[in-house]
């Protein structure tokens, strides 16, 4: 058993055939020469122009020069980050879809190959490519060190971080590639997703610089943006008395993220055979993240800062002033849990929908079957949403109790209630959309529209009517926005979470009730078809 596992793992990471093949092709022909040439030209060109800017300041004070050199280094690193952000998603996003179009995937999977082996191989090829880009940039980075804008440790940590970020974007690309049917669609979706990730992580990273003050000690979020590796790379966080480099923490987070992307892609490629593995991993990860981030950095309210206050610089500075040791408020914790779970919005429609996609059927096999929680059937969707929410909230609660300042349950529970209601509502909407019978694609489109109307449209509308007013986000009209209880502006109360939670359940029940008859009809037609 163990021996077999070791053998499989060694085979996956050493001499992976998919990686070798991809790498061979990547380096072949004029294409790579053109890409590398262009890359170097841009890099050296920008470096030169920047350097001339620094040089022209001759005669000004030493500190100004030093500052310019530092910003020279930052610019070079940001440029490298830009290259990684631009190049890696495209490499990965095409990987699977091109093979699907060429129909070579069937051949690969008729060999004794697990999806994991193949996906890891693809990813390794991309990762190696990223390092090639970074090593090509070494002379420019060396110039920074020689001139005094940075030291070698800065460069090394920045490179490692950039390679990790590239890996994460490649994993996104790989996942999108497996679920897409068209090349352009895959590339477009990958870039959009990567842009969102870069934006959000950059906001967190930027906010993180407001924290921590002694030298290189910073919250690990500062290392989460590829564009801030110059300043955020060579920093550390103190964990139980140890100075842990932030690239280690962010690297670990990214590896978890990559694993989830690969499991997702693998479950698509294996025709659902890996769904169980994927869902169990998600459950464990949400529990661990809930636990770890509830109290990150010894009471600096990591999770809440990380997920919510991080989006609101005003709140951050308030938090920073209040300093370490402040007890965690139920509202902050509950809000943090909600936002930790929020990415689930990308899959709630997929897992709840039923209907046909042209290849097969996803049968409406009931509304709530706890036994199916880890299988890919619609009856397991709601139990799974419930499970994820529960482990995240429990994880947070357990950590606060262990650290001796247990959160106030009465104030905390309404947020749990709110979160469960939120997912139940989206689930019910999917059920209703599915029961119309337009197929899986139509269902997903309907649900995305539903989300936009529910979550995005009010923001635009309320902002418009409040435009020009002092403190536009504190107007009472925002109370009508369903995410109000978990927004980092103003002072949300657990009471509003409770009210919205109840509303969610009523709305969900209504939507589900509407779908029951149609679903029954559909099940009947299906049975007739099969008979």
């Amino acid at each position, binding site marked *: 058993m163990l021996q077999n596992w070791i053998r499989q793992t060694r*085979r996956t990471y050493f*001499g992976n*055939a998919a990686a*070798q*093949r991809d790498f*061979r*092709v990547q380096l*072949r022909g004029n294409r790579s020469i053109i890409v590398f040439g262009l890359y170097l030209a841009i890099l050296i060109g920008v470096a030169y122009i920047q350097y001339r800017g620094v040089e022209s300041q001759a005669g000004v004070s030493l500190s100004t020069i030093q500052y310019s050199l530092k910003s020279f280094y930052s610019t070079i690193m940001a440029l490298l980050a830009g290259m990684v952000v631009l190049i890696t998603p495209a490499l990965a996003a095409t990987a699977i879809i091109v093979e699907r179009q*060429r*129909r*070579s*995937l*069937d*051949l*690969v*999977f*008729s*060999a*004794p*190959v*697990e999806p994991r082996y193949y996906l890891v191989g693809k990813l390794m090829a991309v990762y190696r490519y990223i390092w090639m880009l970074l090593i090509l940039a070494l002379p420019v980075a060396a110039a920074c060190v020689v001139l005094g804008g940075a030291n070698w440790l800065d460069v090394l940590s920045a490179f490692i971080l950039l390679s990790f970020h590239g890996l994460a974007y490649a994993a996104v690309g790989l996942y999108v590639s497996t679920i897409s049917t068209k090349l352009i669609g895959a590339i477009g979706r990958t870039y959009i997703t990567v842009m969102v990730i870069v934006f959000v992580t950059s906001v967190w990273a930027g906010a993180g610089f407001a924290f921590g003050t002694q030298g290189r000690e910073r919250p690990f979020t500062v290392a989460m943006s590829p564009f801030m590796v110059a300043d955020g790379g060579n920093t550390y966080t103190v964990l139980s008395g140890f100075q842990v480099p932030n690239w280690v923490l962010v690297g670990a987070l990214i590896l978890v993220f990559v694993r989830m992307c690969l499991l997702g892609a693998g479950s698509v490629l294996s*025709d659902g055979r890996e769904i169980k593995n994927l869902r169990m991993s998600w459950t464990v990860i949400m529990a661990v993240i809930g636990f770890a981030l509830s109290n990150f950095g010894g009471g600096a309210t990591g999770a809440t800062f990380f997920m919510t206050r991080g989006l609101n610089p005003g709140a951050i500075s308030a938090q920073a002033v209040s300093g370490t040791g402040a007890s965690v408020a139920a509202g902050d914790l509950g809000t943090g849990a909600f936002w930790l779970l929020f990415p689930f919005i990308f899959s709630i429609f997929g897992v709840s929908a039923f209907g*046909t996609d042209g*290849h*097969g*059927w996803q049968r409406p096999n009931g509304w709530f079957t706890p036994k199916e929680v880890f299988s890919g059937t619609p009856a397991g969707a709601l139990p799974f949403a419930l499970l994820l929410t529960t482990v995240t909230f429990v994880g947070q609660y357990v950590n606060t109790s262990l650290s001796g300042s247990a959160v106030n349950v009465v104030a905390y529970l309404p947020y749990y209630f709110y979160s469960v209601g939120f997912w139940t509502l989206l689930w019910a909407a999917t059920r209703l959309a599915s029961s119309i019978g337009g197929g899986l694609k139509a269902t997903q489109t309907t649900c995305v529209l539903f989300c936009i109307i529910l979550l995005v449209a009010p923001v635009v509308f309320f902002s418009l009517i409040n435009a020009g007013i002092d403190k536009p986000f504190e107007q009472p009209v925002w109370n009508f926005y369903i995410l109000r209880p978990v927004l980092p502006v103003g002072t949300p109360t657990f009471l509003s979470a409770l009210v919205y939670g109840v509303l969610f359940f009523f709305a969900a029940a209504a939507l589900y009730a509407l779908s029951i008859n149609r679903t029954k009809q559909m099940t009947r037609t*299906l049975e*007739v*078809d*099969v008979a």
Partner: protein
Amino acid sequence: MLEVKKLRKEYGGLTAVNGVSFELQPGDIFGFIGSNGAGKTTTIRMISTLLEPTSGTAILNGHDVRKDPMAIRRSIGYMPDFFGLYDDVKVWEYLDFFAALYEVPPRDRPGVIDNVLELTDLTVKRDAFVQSLSRGMQQRLCLARCLVHDPALLLLDEPASGLDPRARSELKELIVELGRMGKIVIVSSHILPELADFCNTVGIIERGEMLAFGGVNEIVRSMQPVRAFKASLIRDGEGAIPTLTRIPGVLKVESNESDLRIEFEGSKEQQAEIAKALVEGGFGLLGLREEETNLEDVFLKLTTGAVN
């Protein structure tokens, strides 16, 4: 040994394969015949573990496709009805890639690649890019790929489509050779005659159901239990009918001007009586020969050709 047991596949409401069962021994070359949409590809893909059967299973040398797909994959070579080749690699690189996927140890790979290239007559193309090969060569490369791990079972889905007659006959030779090496070979086709002369077993599938399974001759006989003779006469044949129907074993005689078609089921002695009667009756017998059993006819008769 391959045992296929009540394989069934449903797509939504459509039953593509409906309880197909058969058994093959090492060295068997099985011709799997059916019209478009009959369910050949679906069956083959289920045996190759690429499709999960709705019910039923297939067992190859003790490994079940549902319980142990990895073991099955190690001992099959699947050649689909499309190429699915990578065009940006060289022939040997392509084979090396698959040899690695099939867990052939690195030091054995060059030898294995040379062997399969020789078997498929591609040795001269070893360093050519895949995209530069002709269609026939690409087909052979696909076959070479299926052989890198020396599988016990080969699943060839319409391997002869798009090949010229010469390439077809070369392919046949190759398949016969593989059978001689003790492999089970499953070859699918629309056309029975194309397979009849080198398959020792034939199965005819229609609308997902196996209509007939067995040796080629058995199947033909089971479809055409009566033999028929054609006689050409100088004079009009109508007059010979009463004489002939009196002979034991003659079932039915039809005449078409000077040609007679005699359906017969009897012994050799009785068969000899036919010629004797025609000569002695003075009908001017020009020739008498047994009607060839036309495989195409058998096939068309068996299958209604109307799929879904």
